[in-house]
């Protein structure tokens, strides 16, 4: 499915002064799929249709991302994103859902689970931002006025495209996929919006919830691409250590965008997660904090 076809499937919900574009497919227990940066709900286009055969699949564009509200006049922090998601779920009549968050979406999922625990029935964090592992230098630089002023949308998309291809995937992605992932950011409004999103990235927003993750009373899965060069797997292992009962799923031969590098494996694991089946787990060794620093943590 190309990105235009995916966008055609999106609906829009106005939440006060803001609006959220989202896909709402299927019937059954609800599952919310959250994308990261610099992507949008299209990230999940490969998996959503399959999941919708047994679940109600809800895939929103975060505020400021994709085709949700990108006007330059609101807070885009993880906490605000979580509040907007909570209101959005409320309006859609979703009491609680299985929440799957990738990258920055994982940070939003952590906020949602900690602050609105009744909304999250199960939590899956995939190659998620956490602790002080982010923001990535490139994304942080997009938030500087210097960069935003000097780059044209074409240049910015070119740079991001290079970054996605060279760092994000373990296998070569199709040109159509990369174009689709970056499509909403290929205009001046999109570029400025991405810059504002980048400004909103702040380690404090994960640090503040990290100590509370251990108190979550729902099943938690942490799924990671073993070859992730954006957010190394050691951060996932640390999450598993800090969240009692969390399940660890390492996806071999997959990079940061594991759902595209290993779609069949991820689909199978997601079905297990949603059905409550326990995966084969390998409890990681307890990570040592110093190691995180000394091994070139992308701070």
């Amino acid at each position, binding site marked *: 499915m190309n990105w235009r076809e995916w*966008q*055609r*499937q*999106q*609906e*829009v919900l106005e939440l006060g*002064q803001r*609006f959220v*574009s989202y896909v709402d497919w299927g019937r059954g227990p609800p599952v919310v799929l959250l994308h990261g940066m610099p992507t949008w709900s299209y990230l999940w286009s490969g998996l959503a249709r399959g999941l919708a055969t047994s679940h109600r699949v809800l895939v929103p564009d975060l505020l400021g991302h994709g*085709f949700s509200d*990108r*006007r*330059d*006049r609101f807070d885009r922090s993880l906490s605000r994103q979580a509040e907007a998601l909570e209101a959005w779920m409320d309006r859609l009549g979703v009491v609680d859902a299985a929440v799957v968050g990738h990258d920055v979406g994982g940070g939003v999922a952590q906020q949602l689970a900690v602050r609105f625990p009744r909304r999250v029935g199960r939590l899956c964090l995939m190659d998620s931002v956490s602790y002080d592992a982010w923001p990535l230098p490139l994304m942080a630089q997009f938030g500087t006025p210097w960069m935003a*002023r000097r780059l*044209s*949308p*074409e240049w910015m998309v070119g740079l991001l495209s290079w970054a996605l291809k060279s760092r994000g995937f373990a296998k070569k992605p199709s040109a159509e996929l990369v174009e689709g992932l970056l499509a909403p950011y*290929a*205009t*001046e*409004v*999109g*570029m*400025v*919006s991405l810059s504002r999103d980048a400004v909103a990235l702040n380690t404090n927003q994960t640090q503040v919830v990290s100590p509370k993750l251990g108190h979550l009373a729902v099943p938690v899965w942490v799924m990671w691409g073993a070859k992730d060069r954006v957010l190394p797997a050691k951060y996932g292992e640390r999450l598993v250590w800090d969240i009692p009962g969390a399940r660890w799923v390492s996806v071999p031969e997959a990079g940061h965008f594991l759902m595209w590098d290993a779609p069949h494996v991820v689909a199978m694991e997601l079905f297990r997660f949603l059905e409550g089946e326990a995966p084969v787990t390998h409890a990681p060794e307890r990570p040592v904090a110093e190691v995180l620093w000394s091994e070139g943590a992308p701070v």
Partner: protein
Amino acid sequence: MARVKQVSEHRAEGDVERVYHELRQTLRVSGVDVSLRTWAAHPRFFVAMWEAMGPNVETRAFEELAAGLWQEVLDTTVRWEVLGAWSAVKLGPSQRFHARGALELYEAMQPRVLLMVSAVRLALEGHVVGRRGVPGELERLERGIPSRMAAMEWVAQKPRDALTRTLFTDIEKTVGPPGVPGEYRALACWPEYLEAAWRRLKPRMKDEDFQAAAESVRESARRRALALPFEVPLSRERVAALGEDVNAIARVTQALETRLPSLLLNLSRLVQDVPDMLRQPMPGAARLVPDWVAAEELR
């Protein structure tokens, strides 16, 4: 006329950047359109133009003159055949939401821009434009972009996809210089819709009654410009004294005034093609000025 370089909002610096900000706030639009961006290629003239027009633009009188002009355009085209582009293409809910937002934005903006262009054109021709009102006597409008106005998003002037590129070439050739109008660059975010719309709009533009209607709109805009509440102190001599190329500015302004009425007629047809579209989408609220402030201004 040679292609005139436009100053994008992204690239604007110094006084041009300041005027862009004031334009957005005072016109209450989420971006600066092609006409104004073209004027901004002559920065000293641009600043002088805004100093002359600004006091008018912020008044309720200007708003009502522009609203009256737009009403005339709507009344003219409501008798014409239904365009049928909105229902002819397959757009999803999100796409329709955004396309509709773009139309609302241009509906709110273009009549005001035409009024400004007509005032400048007349002033450069030596007419006395505006009345001799005293600043501070008239009701002014609340500044700021309406909360539900869409972001002004455009496809690049030279798009990569062949269909849009061909459409842009045809549009520019048909409507005249300078450059592809903003509303068409906005609608190009949904190329199939732009194609369907343009295929229906273009043939009508050659008709005698269309040309007559455009001329009538142009005359009405001039009449209304002459009735602006405050005098517009612009002249060829003043522009020359600023060190700008008077002839180039006059040519650009003439080109804008030539094509804007036709663009308004087309915009009106596009707007009327969308079910339940508001006729005055973004009415301005009165600016609340405390008595003591008003009294201060009157001294």
